[in-house]
């Protein structure tokens, strides 16, 4: 199956810690590496990389969000897989 690297930007009424934990949990469940790019009270941007159907499943799962967040919009943009390599180095993983 086709693999993709995608940057998702979720906007709406966001509680950053809650949403990030939720997104990490869903990514882990789908066995997708996740890189956190940015977050504030209105939006969270993450990048994931993996088989297209799993990336779609991640999109769907996070659109529903945790109970204390309301996702009003989701944007997708292609990401370079390099996002994961450089972040791993920086975070010393």
């Amino acid at each position, binding site marked *: *199956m086709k693999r993709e690297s995608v940057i998702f930007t979720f906007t709406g009424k966001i509680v950053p810690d809650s949403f990030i934990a939720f997104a990490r949990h869903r990514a*882990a*469940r*789908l*066995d*997708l590496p996740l890189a956190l790019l940015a977050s504030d009270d209105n939006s969270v941007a993450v990048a994931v990389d993996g*088989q297209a*159907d*799993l990336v779609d499943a991640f999109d769907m799962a996070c659109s529903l969000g945790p109970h204390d967040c309301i996702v009003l919009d989701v944007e997708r943009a292609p990401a370079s897989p390099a996002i994961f390599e450089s972040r791993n180095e920086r975070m010393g993983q």
Partner: protein
Amino acid sequence: MSLQGWYPLVLARDIAPGTSAGTRVEGKEIVAWRDDKGAAHVWEDRCPHRGMKMSFGFVRGDHIACLYHGWQYDTAGQCRYIPAHPDLDVPKTIKVPTFGVAEAGGMVWGNFDAEGEDAAPHPDLPGDITPLRTVFADCPAALLVERVPFTPLDGIAPEVKATEGRIIEIRLGDVTLIAGIQPVAEREAALHIVAAGNPSNDQMKRLAFWAEQLRRDAEEAAANEKIGEIAA
């Protein structure tokens, strides 16, 4: 409540190759299933997808599929195929928890606190047996076992000998029965019964009637205890 050691779950006869059976151990939902090569498996009875009972599903060769969306699992509990995403290489995270399994004395046993070599050896039981039936009763396991000597067969009271842990030996005239005790839930129990050796079909039918009466006796005793509790 932590589950220690080996629990009898179902008579080996009652999961034919290519079939599954759901059960509970101290309330924990378990599926026992047999693949087309004859190997038995004991898993958590819950599909990782939407929580549907795997025991509602169906066995296809050496995979078991969930009834809901057809997600298929191999004998290690690993999801291998999702019909809605046929080209997907299913992530390793999608897995059903699996438990230790053994077959002995005509019964399938499960071990929930250890798997593989870590597990204590399973009960050592004779292979020369004829399966009778399982008695499912709405009463605690201890009460079901307690009632055995009080259910006569042709006017003769059975003699019970506790052998080890969850096994009892019952002497009924010239027949010896071996029974595995399964605590299903607080007030539910199962007794998986086999006969030693090879009694005739007519004898097995008589023993089956006896087992039905045991169920009635145990449930009546449980109901009387409950009435006693309420009255007290």
